[in-house]
């Protein structure tokens, strides 16, 4: 069997069998989707709250899997000597990172399927049509690359315990300020500008435009996502440590 395929399969199997990862990638997004679509604790720009929350939750899927789960798992792999051992096998850094990215994409596919199904049950009416679907796919893939790069950057440099705290902290902050459950328009203007410059914010903004309004993502969304999608993985690869 091909090493990349076998490693990807192992990554996905380990991800879906880790209880804490399932909670982070499926449990919390489902809970947030139901809670914020059924309550009035935050101001929603959409007539139907689910139409605002659902696109944001799709961005949250990427944030939780590509950045947080990937970062924490990789950090502990380094801490427990798994990466040290892999360094002295022919798997190599490229195939290892490739398998991790592929594993993340497969997990996200499952997440998007589950979350979309739950949202549709809650009477979500996505806009955008077929071309919107392609734009959504591009936004999610670019967002994954950017978030994954940041996750590996953290995992490659920080001690596992510090990385765990940093990733969870980052998750909470980005969840609140990226337009996922709280509309960006309710944040101070300077915060809004910073947020769209980060992958979760740009992804969330683009998804709201496509799925909420039937519009194309803004140039700023595409630019931000494209820059992070290239620079973050490159930086992660340059600074990644097996030891």
């Amino acid at each position, binding site marked *: *069997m*091909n*090493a990349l395929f*076998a*490693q990807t399969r*192992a990554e996905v199997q*380990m991800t879906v*069998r*880790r209880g804490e990862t399932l909670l982070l990638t499926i449990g919390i997004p489902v809970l947030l989707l139901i809670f914020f679509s059924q309550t009035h604790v935050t101001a929603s720009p959409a007539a139907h709250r689910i139409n605002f929350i659902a696109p944001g939750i799709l961005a949250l899927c990427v944030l939780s899997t590509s950045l947080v789960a990937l970062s924490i798992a990789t950090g502990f*792999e380094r801490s*427990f*000597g*798994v990466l*040290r*051992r892999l*360094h*002295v*096998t*022919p*798997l*190599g850094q490229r195939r290892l990172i490739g398998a991790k990215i592929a594993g993340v994409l497969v997990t996200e596919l499952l997440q998007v399927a589950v979350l979309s199904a739950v949202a549709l049950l809650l009477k979500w009416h996505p806009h955008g049509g077929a071309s919107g679907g392609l734009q959504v796919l591009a936004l999610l893939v670019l967002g994954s690359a950017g978030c994954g790069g940041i996750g590996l950057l953290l995992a490659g440099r920080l001690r596992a315990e510090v990385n765990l705290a940093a990733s969870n902290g980052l998750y909470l902050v980005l969840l609140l300020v990226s337009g996922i459950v709280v509309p960006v328009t309710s944040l101070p203007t300077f915060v809004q500008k910073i947020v769209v410059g980060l992958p979760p914010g740009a992804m969330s903004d683009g998804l709201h435009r496509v799925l909420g309004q039937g519009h194309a993502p803004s140039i700023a969304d595409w630019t931000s996502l494209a820059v992070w999608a290239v620079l973050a993985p490159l930086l992660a690869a340059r600074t990644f440590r*097996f*030891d």
Partner: protein
Amino acid sequence: MSNAVEVNNLGVTFGELVAVNGVTVHADYGDVVTLLGPNGAGKTTVVETLLGFRRPTSGSVRLGGLDPCRDHREVVVRTGALLQRGGVWFPMTPAQVLRLTATYYHAPRAPEELLTLLDLDHCARTPWRRLSGGEQQRTLLALALIGRPRIVLLDEPTTAVDPEGRQVIRELVRSERSRGCAILITTHELGEADQLADRIVILNKGHVVIQGTLEDLAGSPEMIIETSAPADPVGLSSLLGCEVTRDGPLRLRCATTSTPERIALITTYLTGNGLSMTSLRTRASLEERYLDLIASERDGAAT
């Protein structure tokens, strides 16, 4: 043809700390070479430099003639390594991780064969976190050997392994040697070096104290006797038929093995000269030689 393992005048520093200084070690295919030394001697630093975890500060290292940093991919294809702090994903079983690791190589050994050879059949489906220390160590050894390596580097392979497990590991190391592998083992346990090595390199404080075969290092057999008053070495030498040298006012070294007959001869000789033997020691073990060397290093540093 170059040696399988070449460490040439290696120096490695971490900031101000000199971890390894001027170490030269070679191993040929079919050799087992043991790096022996106390904790902090620099053994792991040598192995990690050979595996490309760090670049030498001075000198050079080669595995199969290749630079482990520059030619890393080629080096790891032909090298199997057991690291001191190497691990496996917690939920994975020995069978799963061996099957996965086998996919990294073109012509791997069968995972089932290694599970049997290393006595891991009974725990092949037990998750890594539930394995004993010895089972984990044997799994790591199986992972090191799955790619049919020509060069094997084992960093403290018998740590946390019970006597039966050690026997299994020793037999596997011997079988890899007979397959023509070059094997470099680090250990701080004399028993392991004693039983496995064709050549032993004793390291202390980052440098080579001495290296050679077990016979070289243990030295010639000797009887070291101490007497109640100074004795004549010449008379004793002709009596025993071996060289006898004075090593202190009351101590004589007789270059021969200790037997009951020789002890009786010495006792009779000394009594006949109005003397008595106050102590008798023999020196033939690696352990004594090793402890002498490490102690003399420590005394040298203190003075």
